[in-house]
């Protein structure tokens, strides 16, 4: 089986990339989705707030996904559901299985990786204590409740104030459970401010900053959780323990891009984003393999995933049509003071049409700071920011004309603090 473009993942990233590739003149496209329907994790995100940027309206996750699913069908793009990619090679051979077609080997001229991300687990952060049932990652609980129609508990403590944790605090409350508190290891929330207001404040759910779970009690089903305050080294402070009697612990302790397939193909992974290193065209270190969405870096808004994925789809189409320049000066981007990472990691100026889009996250919360962009050490842009937080992805656009030097090797971004670091 041969396709011009194979898109791995039928979530928002894969759908947007496939549609955009089709609109850019490539017809022979296959979308491969491992779940029973298209839409990815959006299908379990039944809360609203999606689409404000892309559609200028508030949609639920399934509504947002449906717009893309409808468009995919209208465009006549082929897709396979309940289909798992086992392996991809550098030569763009994809090994796939499902119950209908069996084992398939697919060759593609270009591949778009859009596998999304997964949740960090209790094991990954070594939460001590016993191992009863009743401990769920927030996304798993979300699937049970929103897609399968089952409740996961009655009295709930949530660890981690990432967006899924916050959303689930409200969701569980609406389903009649009592959410005792949301504990957060960091001195600030990892979620969007609007979610703290709409999911915790509106329901009087306390947010315990600089707290973590230090013990889990219960042999069969969870019986309780002990939470303690942590110092600035994240070590629990003895004597600050609070015990909560609860039957459920939800973990929302971070998302990790799912790059097992990327690694099997030998794609270079950025140790900070845990996603492939990409260029301005969302192309990975392997020519013709593109990546977009949460598999590259974890986004806070699906609208940004869509924009990024459209860019990947468009460039994959250009690649298939031999229109993507392989040439041009290579600029590396580097995260300096206060910046955790920047995507893309490399830029070929040749391929920048009007402006370059840089996406990044800051390391901590800042008030009244500036983002300073330097080309080979020289400031080319300065953006004032009243508020910067790790939970909110920053997007910087640099006009092609802002690059005044002919050749640039290094583009850096740093945070300049005026008002001082915010607590």
């Amino acid at each position, binding site marked *: 089986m041969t396709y011009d473009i194979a898109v791995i993942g039928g979530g928002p990233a894969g759908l947007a990339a496939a549609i955009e590739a089709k609109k850019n003149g490539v017809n022979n496209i296959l979308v491969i989705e*491992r779940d029973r329907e298209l839409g990815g994790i959006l299908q379990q995100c039944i809360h609203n707030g999606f689409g404000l940027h892309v559609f200028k309206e508030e949609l639920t996750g399934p509504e947002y996904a449906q717009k893309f699913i409808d468009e995919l069908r209208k465009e006549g793009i082929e897709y396979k559901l*309940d289909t*798992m990619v*086992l392996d991809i090679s550098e030569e763009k051979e994809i*090994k796939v*299985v*499902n*119950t*209908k*077609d*069996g*084992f398939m*080997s697919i060759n593609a001229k270009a591949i778009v990786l859009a596998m999304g991300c*997964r*949740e960090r*687990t*209790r*094991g*990954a952060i*070594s939460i*001590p*204590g*016993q*191992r*009863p*049932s*009743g401990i769920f*990652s927030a*996304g*798993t609980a979300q*699937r*049970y*409740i929103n897609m*399968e*129609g*089952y*409740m*996961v*508990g*009655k009295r709930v403590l949530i660890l981690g104030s990432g967006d899924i944790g916050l959303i689930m605090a409200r969701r569980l409350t*609406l*389903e*009649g*459970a009592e959410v005792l508190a949301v504990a957060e290891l960091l001195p600030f929330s990892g979620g969007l401010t609007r979610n703290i207001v709409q999911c915790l404040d509106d329901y009087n759910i306390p947010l315990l900053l600089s707290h973590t779970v*230090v*013990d*889990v*009690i219960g*042999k*069969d*089903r969870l019986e309780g959780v002990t939470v303690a305050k942590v110092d600035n080294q994240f070590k*629990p402070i003895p004597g600050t323990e609070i015990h909560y009697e609860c*039957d459920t612990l939800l973990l929302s302790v971070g998302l990790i891009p799912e790059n*097992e397939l990327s*690694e099997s193909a030998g794609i270079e992974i950025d140790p900070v984003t845990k996603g492939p290193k990409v260029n301005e065209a969302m192309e990975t270190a392997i020519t013709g393999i593109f990546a977009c969405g949460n598999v590259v870096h974890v986004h806070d808004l699906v609208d940004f995933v869509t924009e990024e994925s459209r860019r990947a789809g468009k460039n994959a189409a250009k690649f298939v049509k031999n229109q993507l320049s392989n040439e041009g000066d290579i600029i590396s981007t580097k995260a300096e003071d206060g910046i955790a990472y920047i995507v893309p990691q490399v830029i070929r100026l040749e391929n920048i049409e009007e402006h370059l889009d840089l996406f990044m996250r800051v390391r901590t919360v800042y008030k009244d700071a500036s983002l300073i962009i330097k080309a080979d050490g020289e400031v080319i842009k300065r953006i004032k920011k009243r508020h910067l937080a790790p939970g909110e992805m920053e997007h910087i656009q640099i006009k092609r004309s802002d690059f005044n030097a002919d050749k640039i090797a290094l583009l850096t971004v740093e945070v300049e603090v005026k008002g001082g670091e915010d607590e």
Partner: protein
Amino acid sequence: MYDVAVIGTGIIGTFIARELSKYQLKILMIDKENDIANGTTMANSAIIHAGYDAKADKNKGKFNAPGNKMYEKLCDELDVPFKKIGSLVIGFDEEDQNTIKELYKNGLENDVEGMEILNKEQVLEMEPNLNDTVTGALYAPSAGIISPFEMAIALAENAMDNGAELILNSEVTDIKKVDNGYMLEIGDRKVEAQYVINCAGVYADHINNMVASSSFEIKPRKGHYFILDKSVGSLVNHVIFQCPSDKGKGILVAPTVHGNILIGPDSEFIDDKENLGTTAERLDFIRTMALKTTTQIPYHTIIRSFTGLRATADIGDFIIEESKEAKGFINVGGIESPGLSAAPAIAEYVVNLLKEISGGMEENENFIATRKKFIRFNELTDEEKAEVIKEDPRYGRVICRCETVTEGEIVDSIHRNAGATTVKGVKKRTRSGMGRCQGGFCSPKVVEILARELGEEMININLDSLDSYILTGKTKENDLYKQ
């Protein structure tokens, strides 16, 4: 009336039951847990030791090396993963070097084959990631790694294939001497058996005390472990022990048979035989101690930490004998390390002991030594994958994406003898949920498959024990919506 009741379905109980099933006996396996191998067999170092450690005059020394030699054939017969990767006891100073020499000598006495004492260069050539302050090592090529609970499940399944019966969720609450045997009280049920074999792990003393006066005590020792992701599975290629010293036995770093890295354990006597909780202090301790072996441990790839209990007897050795006060009641207690390695040899010994006690047992001419192959999709070639899906399309649906476990495997694991009835049961048999996402994606699907295959409601599917429910009801059934 059963001929033999085996209490406890850990590695010892299942090995003995399977060995007994070679004879014409009515055998009952009993466990208080909801599944085979839920205690010590579930959580340990998973190593088949070479046998140089324990003294020859101890049961530990007597059964280890012979047990080791039996594993390859058994794992082949029962389709259980086993890798003979060899072990290294590494030393860092002169005292360690002396210990290594003593272990070598003791190994010779125990008939351990192929041992070598290696110098620094030889060690580092075999294991380049080790701390370069290493001065030498004892190499024992016959040491292996296994999946202990898969072994026990295979043994129970095979014993059942050969006629043995199994009852789970059945705690033996009392044992009474009756004519020609014993009556076991299992909750409201009463079961009679002529002979009883006590393989109750950390509760072996408790079971013994039901028929005899207290002759031994099990003081469990808890050990903490870390499991690292498969992506760093090549950190070491052999089982690496630190030299035992007066400060303790040291922490081991070892590959697992499924390609992860296992680090641990520490050792701590505990009173509560039910508390398997980890503590931050102990986890920190093994984290630090393991760095002596190699400074290269990528701790950010930890996917799980857990504890296991060792059934340490106060006499410091395995207890394998007929009770002096209760005829026909055999204690197999205090089976801590190297109990897993010794298990097949212990089973053979116990069955011979029973032969003597009973005055002879007739062979089961229909005994089948092998069990139905378990299709492990992930290990198949592309052609084999295509073939199994053609035969059963359910092998084309991947349920656990981290370990590439298919619906076909999960369904198979449920419908076998001694099959899975819980999410953990499926996990133990198929590895679904053992990977880096720890069941985040697959557990709802596993619950659904279990419910479907067992003809149950999803809310009745448990994680593990009967009280470890996962779901609390359907949505839209709370007060908010009733108003």
